[in-house]
Structure formats: structure tokens, C-alpha cells
């Protein structure tokens, strides 16, 4: 579904991605692990076209989207719940969801919102509340819900567990699995919390210093010595 071929991305003079190759197949959960600054978020943002890759290609559904503007890419079936959640703080929960549905068909709105609120019942109670007043876990759920409102075929999740109580983290990962199983949405997940992410994912990639160093199924990577030494020891 998504192919990333030899992608290089620059932030100013800094080369954040140095020739990344990876692939996400339809219906998979793929996770990308790596330390802070390895370029995980940059990779997700490059898929969305901000910044655009300076070399290489990003292909989604057989279409080269490398040089398309972001808003076009987001209209072609990709949605992202970015790092730090980025809820619109002065909009209500409902308005946030409306923003998520911007690229969708307005006729589907009522149906979609019911579906999303069924996945995240807590948001139903909070509908009229401003995004900024939600707790961290609720904001994360809203961010995922908002991304789902556009009926994406590919969902990009950037560090959904960041800063949440261990209890909420388990809940979020459970929901991600459910979304994938129930709706068949393909998911590309970036995580610092390698342990949970690898347990959840069908396949995983390890990103070091802007390049992929290792790939395999979730279990293979969990069992890999280097991975354990670099990302798992010292707790989860």
C-alpha cells in the first residue's frame, strides 16, 4: 500500500533521513522504533509531504505522492495523529472531529461520528468541551478519533503512548489493535515504547540515525539481541 524508496529528507542543512526503504502492506500494523532524533517522526511527516523528500520516492496505492502538497496527500486516504496530539485547544471536541472530517464526504459525517464515538465512548460525554480542557489520555483518544473521521485507508500514529499513565497506555494499544482488526485500517505506528509496539505490530523496522538497520516481524525484533540492548533493557 505504501512504499518508501530511498528517501532522503533535509531539515535545513541537516539530513534527517538518509535513504530510507520500507513498505507497508494493506491491512498490516507496521511499527517503526528507534531512539529520539533517529528520524521516526520525520519519516511520518515526509509521507505527508511536510517536509517533502529531496530524493527518493513515496508511493501510496501505486501513485507517486512525493511532490504532492500536503493537503492533497491527506485527501487521498492517509491520516495522521501526530506527535504531541495537536488537538485544537480552543475548539470543542465536536469541532475537532468536524475538522477531521474535512476531507471526507459530508453525507457520511453522522455515520462516522457514531462509529468513532462507539470506539471512544468517553468522547461522547465530552462533545461540547474544549479540546484544551481534556486530560492527556482523552486528548490522545481525540487525536486518533479525529484522524479516523476521514475514513483513512492508512493511519499514521506518532508516539500515541507519550506521557500517559501505564494503564492508559495499555488501553490505547488495545484500541489500536481493535481499529486494525475491526475496520481493516492499515496502521503505521511510531513508538518510543518499543516493547508494547512490537508486541502489537505484524512487522517492524528499526531506524537508526536516519536509516533502516533492521526489519522483521514483531516477535523477531522483540527477540533480537541488539534491539533488546538498545530499546528494551532498562524497562518498558
Amino acid at each position, binding site marked *: 500500500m505504501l512504499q518508501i524508496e530511498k528517501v532522503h529528507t533535509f531539515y535545513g542543512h541537516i*539530513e534527517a533521513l538518509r535513504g530510507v526503504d520500507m513498505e507497508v502492506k494493506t491491512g498490516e500494523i507496521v511499527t517503526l522504533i528507534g531512539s529520539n532524533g533517529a528520524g521516526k517522526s520525520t519519516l511520518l511527516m515526509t509521507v505527508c509531504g511536510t517536509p517533502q523528500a529531496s530524493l527518493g520516492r513515496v508511493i501510496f496505492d501505486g501513485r507517486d505522492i512525493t511532490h504532492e502538497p500536503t493537503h492533497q496527500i491527506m485527501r487521498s486516504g492517509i491520516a495522521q495523529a501526530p506527535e504531541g496530539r495537536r488537538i485544537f485547544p480552543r475548539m470543542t471536541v465536536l469541532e475537532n472531529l468536524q475538522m477531521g472530517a474535512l476531507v471526507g464526504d459530508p453525507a457520511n459525517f453522522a455515520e462516522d461520528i457514531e462509529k468513532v464515538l462507539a470506539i471512544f465512548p468517553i468522547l461522547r460525554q465530552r462533545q461540547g468541551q474544549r479540546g484544551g480542557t481534556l486530560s492527556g489520555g482523552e486528548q490522545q483518544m481525540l487525536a486518533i478519533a479525529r484522524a479516523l473521521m476521514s475514513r483513512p485507508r492508512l493511519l499514521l500514529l506518532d508516539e500515541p503512548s507519550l506521557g500517559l499513565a501505564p494503564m492508559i497506555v495499555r488501553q490505547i494499544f488495545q484500541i489500536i489493535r481493535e481499529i486494525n482488526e475491526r475496520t481493516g485500517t492499515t496502521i503505521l505506528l511510531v513508538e518510543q515504547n518499543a516493547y508494547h509496539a512490537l508486541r502489537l505490530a505484524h512487522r517492524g523496522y528499526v531506524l537508526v540515525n536516519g536509516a533502516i538497520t533492521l526489519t522483521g516481524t514483531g516477535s523477531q525484533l522483540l527477540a533480537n539481541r541488539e534491539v533488546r540492548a538498545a530499546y528494551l533493557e532498562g524497562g518498558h
Partner: protein
Amino acid sequence: MLKDAGMMALASLALAMPLVGFQTVDRGAGIVLDTRFGAMFYAVAVIFVGRLLLLLIEAGHASLIQAATVALSAAWLINVAFHLYPITWPALGWLTWIVASVLAIRAWIVQRRATRPAAGYTDGVEKLGALVARIGPYLGGIAVAFAFTMPFMPFADQRMVDLGILVLTYIMLGWGLNVVVGLAGLLDLGYVAFYAVGAYSYAILSIHFDLNFWQTLPLAGAMAALFGVLLGFPVLRLRGDYLAIVTLGFGEMIRLILLNWDDLTNGPKGIGSIPRPSFFGMQFTAAPREGVTAFHEFFNLDFAPIHRIIHLYYIILFLALLTNWFTLRIRKMPIGRAWEALREDETACRALGINPTNTKLTAFAIGAMFGGFAGSFFATRQGFISPESFNFIESAIILAIVVLGGMGSQIGVVVASILLIGGPEWFRDLEAYRMLAFGGLMVAIMIWRPQGLLSHREPTIKLGPSPGARSA
């Protein structure tokens, strides 16, 4: 490609229609309407062709277009310089020239880019900035040497020295404002207020109390600094943009007060016959008053008005260098580092126990003081001041000098002053287009280099080798 250029032409046609296509002409009491469709269509055509050529350049047909546009813009400049061919619509000529020049530059960039890899491209101007910073002391030395000898160069006529005085005044103002904007990061849009306070303090003190230049100067500077503190105290807690607008309002307030407080400032008529500075008590007049020696008599020279101008030139050179020495020095002081730290992150400064208000206030007061000095000089040089000289556009020009030069860069201020003040003065003949070009240039430079021309920063202190064996 045609469609793109057509859209552009359509947009420019719609833009040009009301203001270029029609002209309101004054007729006696009222106005009547005139049309200028010819000019309008010419302008639109230039833009259409220009856009088309630009797209062709991007598509890889650079060489021929480059040659043609270079020739065209050169021909135009030669025509302007030597008045070869009479021009009915100079504005359209300039428009054509600008379009041609932009195309020529663009073609050059595209060609250059083709010969080097896109990745890892380092900015040439950035490198120049680092180079300038490295050779700064030598460059500064050469510049100072040139500045000292300039009045005695063969090309230095009265107009040249006058221009030198003007540029140096703005350099000094730029250096003064650099303390506030460049180092402390406080956006001051009303700097001209302190310039005005200095000038009026100087005028009033020197006329009413019969003090000479060197006695009045510190008083006027102190007065301006006092105003800086008075303004700064209540408003320095405000966030950046609010501060900008309050200082802008303050600048206007000062001007309006000067305009309306007739008893003190003589209102819009201004203050005249401000005493000129003397050279150790010697005056620069052909026939001095009884008991006063004239400069030319003492040195056995023929009287020439240029003596006075050269004297003024050295005064402002001295003042400017004083400002420069002071700012370079204070940058290395704890207070200077605190200013820069405040610019970078005020919150972190507070956490480190730095009092933000007092620190900003010193920057504000010192900047104001130099503005006051420059104002004093302005008053004594002109001999006449009125509120008209202190409007917002002056503040904008000084700020533009600091920002275009590259904030915090001393040499940048010099370059920007020469470019913005000296440059337009050379095109005096084109009075009408001067400010138009000035505005356009500000936009163009900002878009080209938002961080200013020379924005490289050198640390104020370097970690030397460890003294002895005192390693932890």
C-alpha cells in the same frame, strides 16, 4: 505554461486596472478622471512576457534568455545614466528593468544550480558572513582608516562629505538601536522618539543656557536615556509585538507633543539658529563675532565652508566609533550576555535568577542614550529642527538598517546604511521613485535573506586551555 502566464497577466491586469488605468487629475477645486490604458496594457504585457520567460528558464532554456535580459537591463541603466533617449514613462522603464533583472538573476541561479548537487548545498552568503566575522577586526580597521581619510580623498567634494555625515549618522543610530533590537531582542518601532528627545534637548539647552556642544551632548543623552527608562518601566513586561506597537505609539505621541507644545518647542515652525559646534572655541564663520577666533584665521587658511562640514564629519565619526566601541565591549560583559540570553529565552533567564525587567530597562536606556547623542548631532548639524524630521518613517528606516544588516552584526549595520541611505542618495534625480524603490528593496531583501545580510554570530568568550592540572 501559457495558461500560467495568462493567469498572472489577468491578475496583474485586475490589479493595475483601477489605480494605473485611471488617474484622478486635480482640476481647480475638484478632480476629473483621466485614463492611462496604454501604460496599463504595457505593464501587463511586460509581466506576461516576464512570467513566460521565467517559466522557460525553469524549464531549462536559461542561456539565451539570460543574455537578452542582461543586455536589456544594462541598456536601460546606461540610458538612465547618460540620458541618451528621452523617456516618457520612466516608471514603465523601471518596471521593465526590474523584470529583466529578476529574470537575469533567476537564470543565473538556475544555471549555477545545474552544476552542483542539490543536497548539502551551503549558503554562499552564510559563508561570506562567517568570513566577515572572522576578518572583522581587519575589515573594521580598513573601514575606520578609510573613514578617517575620506574627507581628504581627491573625490571628496562637499556633497560627498555631506553624504558621509548622513550615512555615519544612520550607522550610529543603527548601532544604538542594535543594542535594543539586535542584542536584547526588544522590538522598538519608536526609536526616533529618543532621537527627537535628544535633538530638542540639545536645541533648548544650547539656546537657553548657552552651553557648548560637548557640554550639552551628555545632558541630551541623559535626557533621552531618562525617557527610555520612563517609557520602558511600564511597558517592558509586554510581549514582543505588543511592545513594538506601544513603542510605535510612544514615538507618535512624542511627535504630536512636539507639534503641539508651542511654548517649549515652537510647534510645527520648529526651532532655528541652533548653535554650531566650535573647534576648541574657534568658530567656522567667515566673519566671527568680536572676541572669537575663526578656524580659518587661526590656521591661516582661506575661509571655506567645507572646513565646517569636515569638522562635523569628524564629530559624527567619533560619536559613531564611541558607540561601536561601547557596544562591542558591553556585549562581552555579563549584562550584554544577559541581553542576548533574554532574546533567546526569557523564561529560562528568569529561572536562572536574572531580573528581566531591569536587564531590559538598561538595554532600552542605553539604546535611547545613543539615540539622544545622534539627535544632538542632528540638531547642531542642521541648525534647525522641527517635528517633521521625526516621523515614523525614520524609525522604520533605522530598524530596517538593523534587521537588513543582520541583527546584532556591527558590520551589517554599516553595509545596510550604505545600501539604504547612501544608495538612494546617488539616485537623487529619481526623487519620485526613491521611496518606492526603498520599500520594494526592503521586501526583496527580507525575502531573499530573512535573517539579514550578515547574521553570523561569534561567541563572546571562548574556552581557553585549562590552567594547569586543575581538571576535575
